[in-house]
């Protein structure tokens, strides 16, 4: 992100604190169907939900995103490309000037699909890979998944599609491979993207085995300080800034302010990693009321209250006590949230019980 020279001494995080007119980064889990069954899947994917949004309903969501001027949507799942209407929806979005970034394990990135992607300015691909070698990757993502991803990367390179992303969830078993991931991405003309393991979905089941150790978090922090400008992280590691200076990327929690999530049945949540009723803002199937002045109707989930309170912005139904800026206290607040399974009644953020908290002090 860049910003022209500020004309007034206002900080952007102050604006983000109150929520934007619409999300910058909207995650859309298009389906929970998946050919894989990764042990750490955030959405416990594998089977299609029979109540999934139809093609027409999906197109209506895209039309709403266009009206909200959401620049691009991050499509995930499940494996979104297994939906038979996937490419039709991508075309609908780009025709309506809504860019698409989608996450895939590569299963449907055939030579044809790769050529199609290479020809579009409005579509980005994120290939998921959780090990720089087959043994490390397949232990988490399933046998053969490394070869599937590498085949997709070969197809993209052969089609002349450069700049695709290789998306890695940092775990205890792959933090030692950061340099290898970077070399792999460089050799394909791709960009490395690192995200945090979240104790959501099946990620909660394998949390104890996979979450990076305190020592590894320090390794990750130091590596990001050195290489971070060329590595994408979104807001994944804002909590690590407690080790020193802020890292490149977004150094605050974006839930309900900058990001939100739409799930396969159309439920909208403030945070993509806290899919819980507390954070549910509504459903895209809810009827909107047409304003009297003839402007297009805005469905209730997409309307933003005139109030500047973050709790009333487009995707946060109740005040979220867990979000915050990059202060260690606030980072810990996120991990204390009961929906993440690490509830701690203690006050005083730096005494968080969460193992992900960089500012954690020993108990007692």
């Amino acid at each position, binding site marked *: 992100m860049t910003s*022209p*020279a500020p*004309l007034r001494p*206002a900080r952007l995080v102050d*604006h983000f604190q109150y929520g934007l*007119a619409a999300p910058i980064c909207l995650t859309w889990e298009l389906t929970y169907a998946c050919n894989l069954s990764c042990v750490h899947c955030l959405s416990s994917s594998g089977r299609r939900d029979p109540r999934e949004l139809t093609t027409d309903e999906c197109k209506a969501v895209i039309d709403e995103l266009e009206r909200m*001027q959401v*620049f691009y949507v991050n499509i995930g799942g499940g494996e979104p490309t297994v939906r038979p209407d996937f490419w039709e929806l991508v075309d609908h979005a780009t025709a309506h000037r809504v860019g698409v970034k989608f996450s895939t394990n590569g299963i449907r990135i055939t030579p044809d699909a790769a050529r199609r992607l290479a020809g579009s300015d409005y579509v980005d691909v994120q290939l998921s890979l959780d090990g720089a070698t087959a043994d490390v990757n397949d232990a988490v993502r399933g046998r053969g998944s490394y070869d599937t991803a590498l085949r997709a990367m070969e197809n993209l390179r052969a089609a002349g599609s450069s700049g695709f992303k290789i998306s890695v969830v940092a775990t205890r078993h792959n933090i030692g491979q950061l340099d290898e991931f970077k070399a792999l991405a460089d050799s394909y003309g791709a960009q490395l993207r690192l995200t945090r393991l979240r104790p959501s979905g099946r990620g909660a089941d394998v949390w104890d085995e996979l979450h990076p150790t305190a020592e590894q978090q320090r390794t990750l922090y130091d590596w990001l300080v050195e290489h971070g400008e060329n590595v994408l992280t979104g807001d994944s590691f804002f909590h690590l800034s407690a080790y020193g200076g802020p890292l490149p990327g977004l150094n605050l929690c974006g839930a309900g302010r900058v990001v939100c999530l739409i799930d396969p049945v159309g439920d909208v949540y403030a945070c993509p990693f806290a899919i819980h009723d507390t954070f549910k803002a509504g459903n895209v199937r809810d009827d909107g009321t047409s304003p009297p002045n003839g402007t297009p109707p805005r469905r209730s989930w997409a309307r933003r209250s005139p109030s500047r309170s973050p709790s009333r912005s487009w995707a946060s139904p109740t005040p979220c006590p867990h979000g915050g800026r990059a202060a260690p206290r606030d980072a810990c607040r996120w991990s204390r949230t009961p929906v993440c399974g690490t509830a701690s009644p203690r006050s005083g953020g730096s005494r968080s019980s969460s193992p992900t908290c960089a500012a954690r002090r020993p108990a007692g």
Partner: protein
Amino acid sequence: MPPFDMARPWTLHPQVAVRPEPFGALLYHFGTRRLSFLKDRRLLAAVQLLTDEPSAADACRTAGVHDHELAGYRAALETLATSRMIVQRTPPRHPEAP
């Protein structure tokens, strides 16, 4: 890149989308995938006026920028030009009368 020329005609890059926000606007470039923030409503107005004004300086003045403030706006526009959010427009849409 040469210094930003306020006397030249400029325009938004055709791949840039502008979304007004309470604090100004967000700009997104679909080509470079970069996001920029306009933290000032007059800067937003000036950017939107670029295409129809003969020069960047004229766009700023029409947007209500006073002469003593022009240097700050020039710096902001230069940043936008560096990230290719705005580009030079040739030939000028409104050539000056002879």
